[in-house]
């Protein structure tokens, strides 16, 4: 197979990922501008490093790792620049004074206070519903590290959530 053929196949694979990549970047970063930039940079980076992908069957995990790493770098950069909360949610545009909104705000605020590594594992585990093993593959860390980050994140969120009960 020629490189040109594999480039075409690579392009087909990447087009399939645009929507899911943007959704995940938005979930992690909580900001449309940052999500735009991270998604675009992740695709550009994937293209630059496409020769390192040896098995297209593993494209999703390979590209997922590039994307999450890009988001992580932006979160870390952001942490040095300013504090920004998680997206203050979509869906119901009208203010909701129910208990559910209160719980939602508490969860969002608790997650917003996590650092980049802990925030990412929480989003991947509880929003993207990835398993610990899958998260480990995307982050390039042992699953034990994912577990400890999840444990730490939940523990640090717990007092805030407990107060809200």
């Amino acid at each position: 197979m020629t490189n040109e053929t594999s480039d075409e196949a690579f392009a087909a694979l990447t087009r399939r990922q645009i929507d899911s990549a943007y959704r995940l970047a938005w979930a992690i970063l909580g900001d449309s501008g940052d999500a735009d930039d991270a998604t675009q940079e992740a695709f550009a980076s994937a293209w630059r490093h496409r020769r390192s992908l040896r098995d297209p069957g593993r494209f999703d995990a390979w590209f997922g790792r590039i994307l999450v790493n890009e988001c992580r770098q932006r979160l870390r950069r952001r942490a040095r620049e300013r504090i920004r909360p998680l997206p203050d949610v979509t869906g119901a545009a009208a203010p909701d004074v129910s208990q559910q909104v209160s719980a939602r705000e508490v969860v969002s605020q608790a997650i917003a206070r996590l650092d980049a590594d802990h925030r990412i594992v929480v989003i991947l585990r509880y929003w993207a519903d990835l398993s610990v093993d899958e998260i480990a593959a995307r982050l390039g860390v042992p699953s034990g590290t994912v577990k400890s980050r999840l444990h730490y994140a939940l523990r640090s969120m717990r007092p805030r959530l407990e107060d809200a009960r």
Partner: protein
Amino acid sequence: MNDSDFDRDLEADVRAELHRSIVAPPVPEYLRGRIERMPLGEKANGGNAMTAWTGHGLSRAVGLAAALAIVALLGTGLFLRGQNRGGVVPGSTGASASPTAAGSPGPTFPPAPTGQHQMVGGFGWIGGETGFIVVGDRELHLTTDGGITWSEARQLPQSTDLGLTFVDAQHGFTAWTSDDATQTRIIQYRTVDGGKSWQSSTVASLPIEPKTGLVIADYFSDASHGVVLVSRRDESSLGPLGPVVSMTDCLLYSSDNGGVSWSSGSAAPCIGDVGLPNWVSPTTGFLMVSQTPPTVAVTADGGRTWKSGILPGVLSETNVVPRLMIPPDSTGRLRFVGSYWPTSGTWSGEAPLVVFESSDGGASWTEAYRSSGNFVSISAFSADHWVALSGGNTASQLTETRDGGRTWRRIGNWQFSVGAMAWSDEKHGMLQGIVGCPAAPGEACSGTGTVYVTNDGGLTWHQVPF
């Protein structure tokens, strides 16, 4: 509300609120256009090129993600233990499928018998025909007939994220933590009735310190003898790229009465940052404790004592991904199998297997030989007879070696991705198929899917009814 209830509610709250609150907007058209106009889009030609590439690529190297998945799979706490207790006629529960000879098309992944795929939190063999599956985070099902029939759902006291160990069909163990204002309490849960009821004991209470978290791993070698390893993950130091992680306060607690009471903490290898313990027999386990230099800790007494040794000849900027340990043979020779994973530069796609040997219980190692093969999981039936899983998001292969990894033979193809596998012996195996991720259509989730069991060494596979 007790701690267990709160932990359960906490995870449920976080999951529910994230799903409710994070609803990402559609991709802006300008962004889609920008990406599609990148160089990668200009030559795009859709399905034909995709087909050609996929067909070619699947016979080649597995890829970086697969190498990473090896690390993940080794941390699942699923153990190859016990011996075959006799043949079992394959059951009729659920759908069945057979891996096919190399090169021919295999079966596609059928829907779950229940019509709806569920999150599988973990699975494994306890010994012979006894095994377990955790559906979701806490719904435990046991089998004592090789997966033909399964028990009713039994509720775990907390999530299996920190591991679950059964030493037989009755005795199971899992650890968790609970915080008060100043201390973290490490709690060991135990069951003596196959998970129908659980009792707990406090292993230790450790002070809460800012910017730290505890990493915990528990293990029981039999119904009486167990250990809990604890390390503190410290992120209080800040480096130029963010928190600098170090593991401190690495302690070991032991019990001789089935977890009713525990010793005070003693010094132990640190767990968590590089790896967690993996068990290859009731008493033999190993743990990667460092990558710089690559160092393996080995226990031969169920985790009470550990010996650490450096793996020689590993180049810098190369990680050793642990895959397997072969317990000592009659001459006392211990073998550790890892693969090399470059951490920088462009990866060639090859991840050579490296076999190290030790004649002093793991205090020192020498490289024995190297072999090729990119696998996501390896299980050993004997010193030289291993079975390995490889593949990608659309297909998987099962291969075996009978000469300790020097040569490999493909014994099965699957037309779907397999996320993990576990074997009790040469007859009894379980594997987990990967299906679509409910939260992100088009993506794959390894935690979501159904599980197949085999009772005839992989000739036929039967879908479990979850």
